[in-house]
């Protein structure tokens, strides 16, 4: 498989909501208060109001379920979701991968409706950073 960069996404989160022990695992919700994204073909900001709904499974893997709205620097709205997994105990390095999907009504960015993407994430001091690539 080949992929090429789409953008790098930085998220700012509010204090987490520790829902606690739910039937499928430990549920923790991360409210998204903002952020930014930057790539060759699109850039802009993350609007406040999204969240990442996470569940830590009994096998230690955290499942992510994120929804945010992006706003490009030229005013287009992009609905973005991803599912992913974060396995901090993975060897030789923590494993944090996602599969983002996009929906937009803006013709300039309609290519996003027609691609599958993948993300590799790291937790930086000021929040998660997701490097997102388009599957070619």
């Amino acid at each position, binding site marked *: 498989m080949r992929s090429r960069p789409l953008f790098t996404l930085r998220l700012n989160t509010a204090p987490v909501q520790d829902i606690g022990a739910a039937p499928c695992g430990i549920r923790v919700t991360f409210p998204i208060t903002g952020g930014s994204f930057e790539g060759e073909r699109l850039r802009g900001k993350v609007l406040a109001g999204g969240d990442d709904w996470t569940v830590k499974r009994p096998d230690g893997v955290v499942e992510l379920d994120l929804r945010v709205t992006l706003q490009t620097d030229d005013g287009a709205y992009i609905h973005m979701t991803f599912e992913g*997994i974060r396995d901090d105990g993975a060897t030789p390095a923590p494993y944090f991968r996602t599969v983002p999907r996009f929906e937009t009504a803006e013709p300039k960015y309609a290519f996003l409706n027609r691609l*599958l993407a993948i993300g590799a994430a790291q937790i930086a001091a000021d929040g998660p950073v997701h490097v997102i690539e388009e599957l070619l």
Partner: protein
Amino acid sequence: MDFQLLMTLHVAVGDVQRVGAVPHGTRVTAPIRDGGFEGRRLRGKVLPGGGDWTLLRGDGVLELDLRVTLETDDGALIHMTSFGIRHGPPDVIAALARGERVDPDAYYFRTTPRFETAHPKYAFLNRLVTVASGDRRPEGPIYTIEEIL
């Protein structure tokens, strides 16, 4: 991003169910008859009873939603789901609809398989994110599934 081959999966589809025009597009469901998968770390067969629930959107993109059960050659059951999309130039999509064999590079057919298993030997599948490229053959699709490293 780096990838590593996980397996090649082929499925044979039965008679499709043309559900028709639904609110989000045109829905066609393809029951899975059988199939097989082969990779360095796992191999086996696809059990009958799965399906691929497809939706042709208004923008011409086909969304696929596959669910099947895999059975390894040593008896483990693996629940597999995969969401994907397929689209291409109208003449290529028309050739696929006629049941012709088409070069898979002529269209975009990508999916994101996920796995669940209770078998310890294959538990690594529970902790992976994978991607696949599809080749829509007349007898059914072939997926080359790769693990995202």
